[in-house]
């Protein structure tokens, strides 16, 4: 099959297919912007001290210390890269939009003589092409925004690093790699799908529910991260420094493993929530939700996982904020002791940086909630005939709406609690039970209110997504759905 034919067939379809391509491209645009922003931060030149090789001084070109301080730049870039997680989850969810119509189209290609490989290639090409368009548009937006955003304040400092550019191969790499990764992911997702002339068949998953083995990952991750402080202390007592690779392995590796455990554990949590709900259900809506959860615990797990990743980071951020607040208290107390006549508000730098982290987390939660909205809406639309038949038989729409709400919220609450527990536990090992600053010390108190606010934010985001997606319920239960063949 000629490449032009693949492209033509990949882009054939209805308005829903067009919407899917547009949303996938938009997700790729956001991801490209986040990655290019991270690369730009990394591209800010390091300024070494002439008399202290290996150490770097402040850049002093930018108004924001997150960009100025060499030690903080890596964290800023990492936070920007973390923003791509919910964006990628959103893209993955978008691929399910209008899936029944696409399945029929792919089956039509097979009926017309396409081989299974060719049909898969067409499906994969659609995703790859949409992401390529999005990546190219994202790069265009990135370059387009550089000019209007390149401003200096009265002190001659820039708000953003608009004076530096990532290396050209890196930019080209992003544009090339994103579509390739997306196409690869799409091909991987289709490994359970058999496209036949009479329709698309998804290989049944094993009947047994997911096992709780991700719990082992969570424990391993927590142990790894918790050992960071004792390891540093061990080296310090021997008047040496721990190797950087060891710190990265224990710290970043531990955090990633724990996060992976929570994300992979969502399937088990959904399944277990479904079983519990089924055992104790008293209403038809709960029965419907329970059966759906046990039947397909992984439905929507991709976007749900992104939301949980945000909650884990939020839990950790809340602990860090609590830690910095106590440090500032100690600093203020120390200043009062030394020079009570001077009004001093303390060093707010770290707390202000935490405000930016909070902002990034809220943005990520909103994006993840967008993905969830797509997932729930798609689930409603794909069940429209069964829903229409139920409503025609006299089942109130309220019962169906409540079943969707149960299905979303039943696994959300325990998963969010677990994610918060992991996030706080990770950082608790770092903060310890006592905070010291300026020769003073105070017990570390866990900021439960801030931690709880992240939990409430996540649950509210899920509830809002479900609430908005329920707008599709009325249309999906219309009697016209029963007439379509």
């Amino acid at each position: 099959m000629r490449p032009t034919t693949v492209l033509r067939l990949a882009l054939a379809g209805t308005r829903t297919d067009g919407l899917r391509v547009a949303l996938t491209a938009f997700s790729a645009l956001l991801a490209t912007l986040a990655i290019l922003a991270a690369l730009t931060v990394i591209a800010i030149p390091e300024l070494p001290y002439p008399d202290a090789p290996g150490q770097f001084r402040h850049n002093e070109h930018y108004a924001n210390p997150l960009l100025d301080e060499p030690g903080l730049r890596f964290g800023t870039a990492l936070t920007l890269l973390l923003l791509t997680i919910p964006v990628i989850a959103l893209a993955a969810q978008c691929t399910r939009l209008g899936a029944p119509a696409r399945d029929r189209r792919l089956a039509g290609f097979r009926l017309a003589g396409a081989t299974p490989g060719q049909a898969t290639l067409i499906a994969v090409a659609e995703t790859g092409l949409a992401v390529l368009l999005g990546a190219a548009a994202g790069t265009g937006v990135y370059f387009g925004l550089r000019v209007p955003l390149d401003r200096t304040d009265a002190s001659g400092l820039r708000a953003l690093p608009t004076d530096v550019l990532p290396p050209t191969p890196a930019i080209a790499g992003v544009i090339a790699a994103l579509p390739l990764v997306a196409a690869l992911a799409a091909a991987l997702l289709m490994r359970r799908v058999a496209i036949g002339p009479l329709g698309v068949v998804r290989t049944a998953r094993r009947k047994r529910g997911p096992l709780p083995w991700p719990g082992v990952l969570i424990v391993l991750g927590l142990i790894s991260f918790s050992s960071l402080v004792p390891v540093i202390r061990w080296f310090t007592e021997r008047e040496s420094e721990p190797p950087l690779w060891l710190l990265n392995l224990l710290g970043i590796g531990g955090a990633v493993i724990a996060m992976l455990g929570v994300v992979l554990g969502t399937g088990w949590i959904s399944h277990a929530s479904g079983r519990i709900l089924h055992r104790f259900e008293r209403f038809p809506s709960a029965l419907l939700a329970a059966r759906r959860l046990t039947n397909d615990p992984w439905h929507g797990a991709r976007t749900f996982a992104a939301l949980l990743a945000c909650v884990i980071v939020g839990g950790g951020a809340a602990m860090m904020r609590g830690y910095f607040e106590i440090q500032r208290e100690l600093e203020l107390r120390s200043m009062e002791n030394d020079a009570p006549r001077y009004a001093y508000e303390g060093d707010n730098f770290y707390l202000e940086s935490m405000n930016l982290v909070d902002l990034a987390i809220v943005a990520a939660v909103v994006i993840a909630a967008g993905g969830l909205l797509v997932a729930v809406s798609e689930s409603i639309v794909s069940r429209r005939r069964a829903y229409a038949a139920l409503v025609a038989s006299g089942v109130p729409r309220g019962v169906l709406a409540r079943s969707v709400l149960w299905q979303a919220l039943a696994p959300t609450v325990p998963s969010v609690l677990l994610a918060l527990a992991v996030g706080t536990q990770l950082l608790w090992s770092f903060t310890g039970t006592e905070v010291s600053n300026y020769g003073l010390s105070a017990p570390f108190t866990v900021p439960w209110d801030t931690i709880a606010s992240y939990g409430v934010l996540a649950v509210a985001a899920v509830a809002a997504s479900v609430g908005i997606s329920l707008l599709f319920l009325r249309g999906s239960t219309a009697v016209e759905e029963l007439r379509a063949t």
Partner: protein
Amino acid sequence: MTILRARGVVKSYGPTPALRGVTIDVAEGEILAVTGPSGCGKSTLLHCLAGILRPDAGEVSYGEHRLDTWSERMRARLRRTEFGVLFQFGQLVTELTAAENVALPLLLAGTGRREARTAAVGWLDRLGVADLADTRPGEMSGGQQQRCAVARALVTEPRVLFADEPTGALDSRTSEQLLGELVRVARDQRTTVLLVTHDVQVAAYADREVALRDGAVDASGLGLTAVQGRHGR
């Protein structure tokens, strides 16, 4: 005694008229086939009589009640308690087992879980698919799914069963078996059945036939069964 009545029912989908003043009576306990070519308004008439759609003009009555003046909420309650509805396919909830699907209307009516399941399994047994009680629709054949759908439509012991092309997706042998069971159970229960079909074999199971043409009752009286006769009684 007339249980369902339509008087001059008019219904359009946008500019396209589906029913142009249909008048029919359905007697209690009778099995009535509504026949006609594709697009003649059969399903729309069934939807109006079942209270799924509200007609643009005309009257629809169930016993003494004017359904066309009722709110959607009241009509939904009526469908849940007094009517059973059966479609061609796609009506079972794929995630629920056969027993849970059949028990669903009872659960909605407030029946206890065990009681609902017992009744559901009883109905599955009457339709010869009790062994599939814990099986999901995706693991059943089309005929088995329709038997479960019949059980679900009848589990509340409705006074009227509306069946819209109930065997449209089945082969002829399975269709005959299903219709035979449907008619037998309906007669046992004294359930009124309104059967919409374009298939002469299906229409032949009815006591009486009303033929539609271009959204109106065909006055010629030459329905599908007028030529080929009836069976199944």
